[in-house]
């Protein structure tokens, strides 16, 4: 299959995914389970990464600022802007595309090769919607909360790293964090909008690759790899398009 056939089949699949669930009660239960499995379970990893990411951003900014004309609070300002604009939404989504994406592709792919999806279809269940809609909605609407946590922890990481290295004081860092916030608030909305799009990508694309797995366990592994690659590429493309549309 060529790329365009994959894209066509992906959108055909989405039209089936977004149909009314068979049973609202079952859907709600699965939706909350997916919030737990995909979103809540990712928080420890996201927290760990964010703290160190923030620390490194602030240290590298400080190390590269040699001009005496630039005030020290610029470090806090750049750390905040980089974290909100790119590092938290995009890098965290790329990492989750690996963690969550491979998990979804292998889960759905295994269900396909062991005929569990056929069993759902035979029972009269819309298997695409049943398996994917709770995952897609849970991630699209709740990933932004994880990214907000990531932003906060990244800024804390930047503060800890800089202060313990003696590069700047807490007061200076906080001035930088608060600088130009009135004009830069829009960055936060932009980041959250693109996180929702990334959330959609990191569940729907692996779901697609998992659903159309053919063969055995080897193909499940291949689907999982393809899913991670494709969703990472899609995130980067969407990032560029959204930035062009919203920020420029």
């Amino acid at each position, binding site marked *: 299959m060529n790329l365009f056939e994959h894209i066509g089949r992906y959108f055909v699949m989405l039209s089936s995914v977004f149909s009314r669930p068979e049973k609202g009660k079952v859907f709600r239960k699965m939706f909350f389970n997916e919030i737990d499995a995909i979103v809540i379970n990712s928080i420890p990893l996201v927290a760990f990464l964010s703290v160190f990411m923030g620390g490194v951003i602030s240290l590298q900014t400080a190390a590269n600022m040699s001009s005496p004309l630039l005030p020290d609070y610029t470090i806090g300002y750049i750390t905040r802007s980089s974290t909100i604009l790119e590092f938290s939404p995009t890098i965290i989504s790329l990492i989750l595309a690996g963690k969550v994406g491979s998990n979804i592709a292998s889960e759905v792919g295994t269900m396909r090769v062991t005929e569990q999806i056929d*069993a759902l279809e*035979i*029972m*009269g269940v819309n298997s695409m919607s049943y398996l994917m809609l709770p995952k897609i909605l849970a991630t699209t609407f709740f990933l932004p909360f994880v990214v907000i946590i990531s932003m906060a922890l990244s800024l804390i990481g930047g503060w800890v790293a800089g202060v313990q290295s003696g590069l700047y004081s807490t007061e200076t860092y906080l001035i930088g964090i608060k600088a130009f916030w009135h004009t830069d608030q829009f960055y936060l909305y932009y980041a959250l909008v693109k996180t929702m799009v990334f959330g959609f990508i990191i569940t729907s694309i692996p779901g697609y690759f998992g659903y159309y797995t053919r063969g055995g366990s080897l193909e499940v592994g291949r689907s999982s790899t393809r899913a991670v690659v494709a969703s990472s590429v899609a995130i980067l493309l969407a990032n560029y398009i959204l930035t062009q549309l919203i920020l420029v």
Partner: protein
Amino acid sequence: MIVVDNISKSFGDTQILFDVSANFAEGKVNLIIGGSGQGKSVLTKCIVGLHEVDQGSVLYDGRDFCAMSRKERIEIRKEIGMLFQGSALFDSLTVEENVIFPLRMFTDMSEEEMRERANFCLNRVNIINKNDLLPAETSGGMQKRIAIARAIAMNPRYLFCDEPNSGLDPKTSIVIDNLIKEITYEYNMTTVVITHDMNSVMEIGDHIIFINQGRKWWQGNNKEIIKTDNKEVVDFVYASSFMKNLREKLINS
């Protein structure tokens, strides 16, 4: 009753089924037999709608399944139970939750009623005190019986079994065969079984269809298959010299 009328099916340039017609009667165990790669599974998947047919029709008690919309098909599928070759139990659900699954999706039963029904079905297939186990924690034979319990949970009118004996020892195979036969008669279902197992053919074959090279080659029952002189059927059913000798003795007696 299920009527299959002139079904053909191709995948790309390869034609798998050629104008296959067959009737599967109610209250009987209908077997589809044939060698590997001859089109048995494709035929069954066409009948249940997992594959779309290129031409022909499938009538479920007069209702043309192939001409139906997805929504209309869902109504028919609620009347179908299927036992898959690998059981296809949901591996993240317990034994009991597997049996409850279709009830939860399609009925308004209370939690207690669903558990009662699940226990009834599990008892019917002799699975006792295994409710909280995961499918992976049970044996192959048990998994087949749990899958049968799940298939009959909704009181289906039609039951499909794809190689129910694969991977099972002869004794367990007979238990599964007898179970299929008993529930078919008990609930007056239209049962279609794909099998390679000659014990099954002789034991439960009320009506047998032999598929060869994508065509219906022969049909009859478990008495007639002993006496048939159709070369392909004889070569398939009595493949070993032991079975050929046995057939001779049966005919002579």
